[in-house]
């Protein structure tokens, strides 16, 4: 249906006219006046009117609320979102092995029941029951009956038809109201109206797709819940912007698109048709190459799109989609010198049968990562970390060669940087997280942070490549801290090699844990700036060094202690310290302000509570025991308190057992819990202290301290990264001790240095869940473990595993100890400026032109078209503002300041403040610093755990190891919290306390439908912020109402 979309074509054309004519900024009239409207943090109250004019609608039987419950859709969606989400859930959740799932069967049954209830509701759409005797028909439809007939003493409902009763409950029918009305002899009335929701195009357009099928359906909703392919096409087109969707409907039309629905769903939402022309990635300069690749001109949209989607089983569309997501600056590189064509030749699959749409997730996520992150030399050539010779060798070696062969990748010896890039693009189709491409990206990221004269050497790249499958997660440290030299990388790889060769399994396990925990402590201190930059390289090597050549537990104890000392000394200059002092150090640098000091104490207390609940032996006790025993071994008497200290080790008890040993063996044979804890229970040093044992006995006793030291060091890492809302860390005292560094919990596990995975979920006799693997990526692993301890506030909340751990871990990795107040303030100001500019767009064409141009590289076509539509009217823009992501308004503000610095001061008080801060305090408010302090880590995208704000479109959702790309796209959290704190008068240090707690609340409020439901996260965030403001206002009111304090005369 064109009619409902035609106005948007008009809007776009009008805007194009404005863009040509209004090229001068005329003092931004309206901008200052708009500032008042956007003067407060956006609130989630108004809803955006859907960017459509009233048009075709389709009827859903029964109340919308009930239908949404049954269809698995959030109650917070807008009416025009309903049918796309029904289509999405129908195709994605409705079928398994070509048969309908229970979800779809229930939805079908519900529609049937709803129609029956509508008949009962009659023309006035109200279900009436006057008394008990008139309730029987309704009760039969609902699947219930009155247990004792109309006996008023025992008038309770009970199930007679479980199938119907289930639908009644699941759809939220007010059964208890009915029951209570019957009990009280009162009439029951329940409004049961049909619901009309907007339909894309005309309902008949969709129904006409069905005649050739076995069944015909009189209603689009029925069609959707019974036809997977039509549903998918509906969902796919709904993701395009309305102008493009209308163009596709007109030609090639729904019938021709139907067989291409899967490709359009996965890779089609970046397709943009304007004025009879496809706007291709790379712009006009790339059109010739696209024409050649596709076999049709972008000037012929119908032909172009059809061929694009059909070509090479969808791989060309996947390539197009990746290019469209890449920032324009990268696109410019990728289209020069016929790169576009050459890279596609390298990318496409030689296997005719391989579908780019196989499975439930998009394919080739690494192509998007590569094209986004590939580095360029100043002359425009491809950067080659370590030099070409190193890569020739790496690609010749067996792992790369085999991978290339298995996946049909053209794997040649590259003779130029250009050929190397082509090879990497070829490898991007391979589903692995440890192939040559990942090595290339890791090395590139390290180089990107280093000065040109300190780029990584070929030998180092080869050394890294040799261990990449094992150590990839640890290499991120070298990107995060560019001060670490090649010698530090080499020292680390060699140390790992040495530890892997320790033959005694128990010693190796303890050494792996202690080594990684010591590095973890160094990372925390380095990240918080407590180890000065000039000491990073030397201190790293001092932390690594002690672990060389371990052969005994006693050596391990000394190594772990010396390694820890090296970190503390680099941070404080002191050699000796207590555990309390170490916890204070880890909690953050000392704070001068009372509020900062209080927050610091809170963070430290939180860490101590974890250490306490894990019942770990303190470092002080361990060190004192070790020193005392060493003294005894040298023939001196035992120190005075040694016996009491030894007794402390005996305080630890295992939890009271529910299962017998044999039950545990039968029901949880590979569980790793308990081994370490039992060791501690068996440790009794008192026997060698009084009376004093022989030297050999004392040395043997001292050796028993090493596993305990490992646990304490590991515990400090766990405590630091405790996710908000954590429970396991406080209830299961075996959680830290059970960490399986050797990978013995899973047969054949070889990834012991990789990110830890959760083991033991749902294994009731296994002693609880625990982590297996290394301590790399510990914050994310802990967040994954603890995420389900947050109780959602909404019944149908979707707390998806792919996003929540990212949100929680970002909240604990980010710390704000060294953030100046001005920096936080300007973060808030930029967001306000962004909102003011958007508000001004509705009344000023020139501003509109500028903002539209800024965002074209940032927003997806559909969202961009919604924004452009809102820019036409002040009230529409006012309604749109709360739906803008903080990262978007921040981007608009910063880009405006960057592109039009002279005009910023014209933007009212906000602009004045920004200009003033930049002029007077540039060191504190520059973008590099803001990015570092208010960005988030992007370990999957950037192979770097440092915080950073990235420009670009949000990443789509990918499966398996790339699923985190999606979560890493959400950069709004820290920006929003910073603005909230600034507006409420908190100091930046307060963010250390606020952000974890607010993030937990945010998670509990998410009410989402699909994996890419960012608006749901935004709603939850606004709700959380509003709640904080209200509670603060409540406190202020309470304080003002409090009786005055007595005055001393």
């Amino acid at each position, binding site marked *: 249906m064109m009619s409902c979309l035609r106005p948007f074509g008009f809007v776009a054309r009008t805007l194009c006219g404005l863009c040509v004519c209004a090229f001068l900024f005329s003092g931004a009239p309206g901008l200052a006046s708009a500032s008042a409207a956007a003067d407060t943090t956006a609130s989630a109250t108004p809803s955006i009117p859907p960017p459509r004019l009233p048009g075709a609608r389709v009827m859903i039987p029964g109340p919308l609320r009930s239908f949404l419950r049954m269809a698995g859709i959030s109650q917070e969606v807008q009416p025009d979102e309903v049918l796309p989400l029904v289509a999405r859930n129908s195709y994605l959740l409705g079928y398994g092995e070509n048969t309908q799932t*229970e979800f779809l069967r229930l939805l079908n049954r519900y529609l049937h029941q709803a129609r029956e209830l509508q008949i009962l509701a009659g023309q006035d759409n109200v279900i009436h029951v006057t008394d008990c005797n008139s309730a029987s028909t309704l009760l039969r439809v609902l*699947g219930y009956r009155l247990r004792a007939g109309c006996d008023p003493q025992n008038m*309770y*409902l009970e*199930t007679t038809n*479980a199938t119907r*009763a*289930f639908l009644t*409950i*699941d759809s939220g029918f007010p*059964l*208890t109201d009915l029951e*209570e009305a019957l009990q009280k002899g009162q009439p029951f009335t329940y409004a049961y109206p049909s619901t009309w929701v907007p339909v894309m195009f005309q309902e008949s357009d969709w129904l006409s797709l069905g005649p050739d099928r076995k069944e015909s359906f009189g209603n689009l909703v029925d069609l959707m819940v019974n036809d997977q392919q039509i549903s998918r096409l509906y969902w796919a087109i709904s993701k395009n912007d309305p102008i493009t969707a209308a163009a596709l409907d007109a030609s090639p039309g729904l019938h021709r698109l139907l067989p291409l629905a899967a490709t359009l769903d996965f890779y089609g939402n970046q397709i943009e048709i304007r004025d009879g022309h496809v706007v291709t990635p790379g712009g006009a300069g790339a059109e010739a190459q696209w024409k050649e690749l596709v076999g049709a001109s972008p000037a012929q949209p119908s032909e172009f799109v059809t061929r694009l989607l059909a070509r090479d089983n969808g791989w060309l569309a996947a390539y197009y989609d990746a290019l469209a997501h890449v920032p324009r600056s990268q696109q410019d590189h990728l289209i020069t010198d016929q790169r576009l064509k050459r890279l596609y030749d390298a990318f496409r699959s030689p296997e005719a049968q391989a579908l780019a749409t196989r499975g439930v997730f998009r394919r080739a996520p690494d192509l998007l990562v590569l094209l986004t992150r590939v580095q360029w030399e100043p002359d425009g050539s491809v950067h080659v970390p370590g030099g070409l010779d190193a890569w020739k060798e790496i690609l010749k070696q067996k792992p790369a060669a085999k991978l290339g062969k298995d996946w049909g990748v053209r794997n040649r010896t590259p003779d130029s940087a250009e050929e190397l890039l082509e090879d990497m693009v070829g490898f991007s189709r391979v589903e692995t997280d440890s192939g040559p491409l990942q090595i290339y990206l890791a090395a590139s990221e390290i180089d990107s942070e280093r000065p040109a004269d300190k780029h990584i050497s070929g030998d180092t790249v080869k050394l890294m490549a040799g261990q990449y499958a094992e150590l990839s997660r640890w290499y991120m440290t070298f990107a995060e801290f560019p001060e670490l030299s090649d010698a530090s990388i080499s020292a680390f790889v060699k140390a790992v090699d040495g530890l892997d060769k320790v033959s005694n399994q128990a010693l190796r396990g303890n050494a792996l844990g202690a080594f990684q925990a010591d590095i973890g402590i160094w990372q925390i201190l380095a990240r918080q700036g407590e180890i000065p930059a000039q000491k990073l390289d030397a201190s790293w090597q001092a932390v690594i060094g002690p672990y060389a050549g371990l052969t005994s537990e006693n050596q391990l104890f000394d190594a772990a202690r010396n390694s820890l000392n090296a970190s503390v000394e680099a941070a404080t200059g002191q050699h000796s310290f*207590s555990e*309390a002092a170490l916890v204070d150090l880890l909690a953050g640098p000392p704070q001068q302000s009372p509020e900062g000091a209080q927050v610091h104490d809170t963070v430290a207390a939180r860490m101590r*509570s974890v*250490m*306490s*609940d894990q*019942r770990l032996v*303190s470092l*002080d006790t361990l060190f*004192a025991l070790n020193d005392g025993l060493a003294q005894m071994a040298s023939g001196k008497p035992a120190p005075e308190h040694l016996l*009491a200290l030894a007794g*402390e080790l005996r*305080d*630890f*008890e295992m*939890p*009271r*057992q*529910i*299962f017998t040993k044999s039950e545990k063996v039968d029901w949880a044979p590979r569980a790793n819990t308990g081994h370490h804890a039992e060791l501690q229970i068996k440790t009794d040093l008192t026997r060698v202290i009084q009376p004093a044992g022989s030297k050999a006995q004392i040395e043997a006793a001292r050796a028993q301290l090493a596993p305990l030291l490992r646990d304490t060091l590991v515990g400090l890492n766990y405590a630091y990264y*405790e996710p908000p809302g*954590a*429970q*396991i*860390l*406080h*209830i*299961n005292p075996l959680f830290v001790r059970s960490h399986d560094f050797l990978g013995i919990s899973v047969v054949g596990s070889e990834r012991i240095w990789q990110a830890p995975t959760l083991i*033991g*979920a*749902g294994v*009731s*006799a*296994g*002693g*609880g*869940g625990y982590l297996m693997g290394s301590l790399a990526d510990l914050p994310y692993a802990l967040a994954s473990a603890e995420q*389900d*301890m*947050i*109780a*959602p506030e909404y*019944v*149908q*909340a979707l*707390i998806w595993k792919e996003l929540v751990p990212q949100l929680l871990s970002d909240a604990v990795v980010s710390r704000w100890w060294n953030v100046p107040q001005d920096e936080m303030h300007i973060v808030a100001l930029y967001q306000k400026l962004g909102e003011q500019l958007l508000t001004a767009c509705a009344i000023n064409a020139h501003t509109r032109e500028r903002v539209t141009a800024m965002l074209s590289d940032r927003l997806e076509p559909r969202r961009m078209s919604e924004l452009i539509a809102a820019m036409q009217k002040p009230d529409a823009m006012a309604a749109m503002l709360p739906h803008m992501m903080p990262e978007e308004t921040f981007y608009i503000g910063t880009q405006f300041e960057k592109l039009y610095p002279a005009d910023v001061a014209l933007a009212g008080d906000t602009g004045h403040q920004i200009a003033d801060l930049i002029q007077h305090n540039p060191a504190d408010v520059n973008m590099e610093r803001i990015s570092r302090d208010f960005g988030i880590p992007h370990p999957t995208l950037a192979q770097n755990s440092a915080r950073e704000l990235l420009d670009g479109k949000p990443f789509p959702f990918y499966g398996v190891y790339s699923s985190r790309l999606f979560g890493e796209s959400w950069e709004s959290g820290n920006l929003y919290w910073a603005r909230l704190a600034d507006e409420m008068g908190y100091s930046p240090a307060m963010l250390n306390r606020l952000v974890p707690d607010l993030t*937990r609340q945010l998670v509990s409020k998410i009410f989402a439908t699909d994996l890419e439901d960012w608006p749901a996260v935004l709603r939850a965030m606004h709700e959380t912020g509003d709640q904080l403001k209200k509670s603060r206002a409540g406190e202020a009111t309470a304080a003002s109402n409090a009786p005055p304090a007595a005055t001393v005369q």
Partner: protein
Amino acid sequence: MPKRVVLFIVLLAVPFSGRGPRANAQESQSRIQVNVVLVQLSVAVTDNKGNYISGLKPEDFAIYEDKIPEKAATFEEGNTPAHEVAHGPLSDDRPFGSTAADTAAELARASNANIFVLFDTSNYMYRGFVYAQDAIADFIRSLEGVGKVALYSYSRDLSRVVTLTPDRSQVLHGLRSTVAGDDAALYNSLLLTVKDAAPLTGRKAIVVFSNGPDNASLVPPEDVAELAQSTGTIIYMISTKAAQSEPISTAVFERMSKATGGKAYFSKDWQDEKKAFESIRDDLGHLYALSYYPQPNPNRGWRTITVKLVGKNLQKYHVRTRTGYRLILTQTTTPQQAPTPAEQSKVEAPQ
């Protein structure tokens, strides 16, 4: 040694914060601090046929903690108000800022039991979901002598559908609004429920309606059972014979409920739970509630509680109560001192 170890007794009873479980849930603090030391016991006394024995007096009970005789501080039978029996032990063992009279009086005010209904709405319950709802509705309607009821449901996550309320209608509305589906994380959810119950005074029980398997919890049942024991929370498990096809769940249901002083029931199906409901109602109506202030005890770990009946005539009866509680050792930053009895008064319960 630059730190000391202080004894913290895991919750025994009365919170001073005045916050209900909802407040705890919303704030979701991992730990709360409770400034009290009073061990509360719910004790069932039955004959060989399982009939409840009523009319016993405080002096008929002998309480031992790790074989150390304890003096009852308060005593209550069934739904009668609690009354103070004896003052606590020496002031050294008293908490900061509280007296035996304070806590006993507060306990006396909270004589009505609080019940948390925890409803399994996971995929495992799909077939019996509506029948289980009917059964729970019957159970809620039938609760007498119970102050407040809360309705929680769980699948992969816990949902606090209705927090503690005296309004049964509200609970029934909440019950009928639950939705089915997803994995089952019983022990995670039970943990969170025990923590909500922990700060409450008086008798408190969790009644779990579940068909058994847990395929998502990361918390082991042992830890949940310990916390329930340490906080004096009774757990009843109501299930069907379907659960008995899975031996792990059966074992946990029976042992966990027994350890907390509750029971597990496996009826033919959800329509046949009347006996279980009657039994729980009877239990709640006939439990003796005793409390005591622990005598000095060097044990800093699990403390075993034994309750015996005094006198020959009473030896034929059976006593059921929780079997103990755990102390938590907590590190503080003040160095070089041994714990003093006064320090033992600070109670910290993991939340």
